[in-house]
């Protein structure tokens, strides 16, 4: 209890004490008491009235100077008021700064609510997405950006990467749209103009595809003559070895061109692979047979099919992905090694793994092995005749099926490549039995 309160209590006590004494001395005790209570009430009522009048128009009036208990309360209100005003001003200043800085941001930013309604957007977003200030606040973003691919991106809710879509309103502009969830259910949508990048990307892909295509014809001619020459009995013995080497290298060039074309075809045909049912078991047995027949060194290749389920996807792409994995395993597993191909399904989806007891991959190379032409050991992979594009093809084909590639490897002991397919790509075996 602070001083003001003790003083106020003491004052009330003294007033009542005086009333009691006066009543006892002069008689008429009730009247004295009633008089003191009435005076006390009046004092508080007057102060209440002044407080109320001041609160009603406190922006204009000075606070009433009452002192005592009421003065204390008024002083506290003034303090609260001042603090509130300070915070408000600080907030307004911050907000203004935020608006100014967001206006010059090179990326478009849109704040969305839980139900995808637009709450706020900056000037860049307005320009990029052709939004109308004020009018568009409260509208659902997917009502304005109606590109089906973007709507699917929102529905699927996998926001780890942006989606690149053409925005029709600006005539051929390509935007990279990236949703980042924040707080409780809020979402930030970032928009960036990537028209130039995608043009360059398209140019590059086209160039690679055209160049490989153009190179194929002369190469076929060269290979044809090399074949004829090799079979020519009139050819001197000294030429046999060089000719054989020339044929091998021409074969390799052909393989590289084939893989380059395959890769650019994968890149060119949209983001999602088709929906035809693919019999994984049958496909893997065929690939195993190929591997057993073609590999020059004898070794054990086992196949364990633990599921009858099928996959929804493009058969040619899946075949190319699995075949590349198996060929890699064959290539890097020494004589006497083992290769196991496995297909199984569970709650997380479908999985295909190719495990070998080969030379393995050093850990520092693992993150980069799916890059084009990336070599762990340049000398060795050339000798084994790979194109350097196999894993890049695997990665692209899997991406188009929404699948992921997992690589576990230990140097000298072997590697395991596992493809994880999402559950919506798996057609359960029971349904197949019914149909």
């Amino acid at each position, binding site marked *: 209890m602070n001083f003001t309160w003790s003083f106020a209590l003491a004052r009330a006590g003294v007033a009542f004490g005086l009333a009691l004494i006066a009543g006892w001395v002069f008689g008429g005790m009730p009247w004295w008491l009633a008089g003191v209570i009435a005076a006390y009430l009046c004092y508080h009522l007057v102060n209440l009235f002044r407080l109320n009048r001041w609160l009603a128009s406190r922006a204009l009036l000075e606070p009433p100077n009452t002192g005592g208990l009421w003065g204390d309360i008024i002083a506290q209100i003034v303090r609260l008021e001042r603090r509130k005003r300070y915070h408000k001003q600080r907030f307004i200043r911050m907000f203004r700064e935020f608006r100014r800085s967001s206006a010059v941001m090179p990326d478009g930013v849109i704040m969305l609510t839980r139900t995808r309604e637009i709450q706020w957007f900056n000037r860049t977003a307005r320009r990029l997405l052709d939004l109308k200030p004020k009018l568009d606040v409260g509208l*659902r973003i997917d009502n*304005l950006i109606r590109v089906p691919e973007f709507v699917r991106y929102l529905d699927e809710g996998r926001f780890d990467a942006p989606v690149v879509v053409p925005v029709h309103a600006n005539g051929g502009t390509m935007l990279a749209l990236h949703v980042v969830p924040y707080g409780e259910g809020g979402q930030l949508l970032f928009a960036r103009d990537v028209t130039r990048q995608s043009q360059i990307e398209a140019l590059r892909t086209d160039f690679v595809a055209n160049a490989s295509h153009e190179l194929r014809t002369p190469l076929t001619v060269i290979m044809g003559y090399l074949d004829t020459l090799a079979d020519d009995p009139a050819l001197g013995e000294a030429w046999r070895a060089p000719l054989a080497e020339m044929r091998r290298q021409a074969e390799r060039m052909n393989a590289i061109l084939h893989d380059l074309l395959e890769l650019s075809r994968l890149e060119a045909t949209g983001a999602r692979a088709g929906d035809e049912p693919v019999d994984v078991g049958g496909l893997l047995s065929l690939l195993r047979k190929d591997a057993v027949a073609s590999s020059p060194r004898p070794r054990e290749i086992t196949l364990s099919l633990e599921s009858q389920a099928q996959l929804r996807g493009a058969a040619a792409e899946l075949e190319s992905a699995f075949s590349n994995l198996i060929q890699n395993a064959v290539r890097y597993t020494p004589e006497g090694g083992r290769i196991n191909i496995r297909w199984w399904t569970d709650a997380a989806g479908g999985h295909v793994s190719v495990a070998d007891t080969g030379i393995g991959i050093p850990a520092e190379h693992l993150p980069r092995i799916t890059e084009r032409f990336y070599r762990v050991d340049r000398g060795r992979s050339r000798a084994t005749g790979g194109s350097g594009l196999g894993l890049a093809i695997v990665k692209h084909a899997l991406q188009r099926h929404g699948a992921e590639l997992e690589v576990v490897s230990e140097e000298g002991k072997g590697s395991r490549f596992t493809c994880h397919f999402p559950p919506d790509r798996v057609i359960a075996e029971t349904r197949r039995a019914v149909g």
Partner: protein
Amino acid sequence: METADLSHHISRRFNADLEGVRTQVLAMGGFVEEQLQKAVTALVEGDSGLGEAVALDDRKVNDMEISIDEECSRILATRAPTAGDLRVIVAIIKTITDLERIGDEGEKIAYIAGRLASMERPTDKYREIKHLGRQVEQMVHGALDAFARMDAQAAVRVAREDRSVDEEYESIQRQCITFMMEDPRTIRRALDVMWVVRALERIGDHAKNICEYVIYMVYGKDVRHTQLDEIERDLAARGA
């Protein structure tokens, strides 16, 4: 107190229903826009594979129309909307019919694109069709934007573009006739081109119809078969 809360609840669910069906319409619109764009691209770039894919996907547009139609009937039956809400439902039912027709015309273009891809391409590489296609795509886009924003003024602006689409149509028609007279061997191709241009012109008309439904939805005024200038004066008088 309790009844007030209940009615509030009902109207909120109703709003959610309306909002949901509107979003479905716009999703359908987005899909139709993409179909149209792809169909024109297939034709201009001679990509028969893309043309076939577009023609096949028209089925999805029809499915969307049926599902939205059912949803509208359900809302009409269970909520018995009045005034503005009723107008929204009526406008939606009409809009999806036009969107479905746009899809059909797109299918037609895609189908012809597949056929034209195997023929020799003209020297102008279908530049006129590309231009007209861009114009029509923009009309459809603008009409759907006006629908999303309930923006009657934008709707009038888009509807006005129909005139320039019609002019373009006439000029390509005349050009085709000239080609046919100069060289009778091009008649087959020119006839196909005529079909495409005709389809694009029809799409422009459908987009204009959607704009009229937007005006109806916002102001409750039926502006079909009315001159655009008159509509604009009318809207200005209402202080829009």
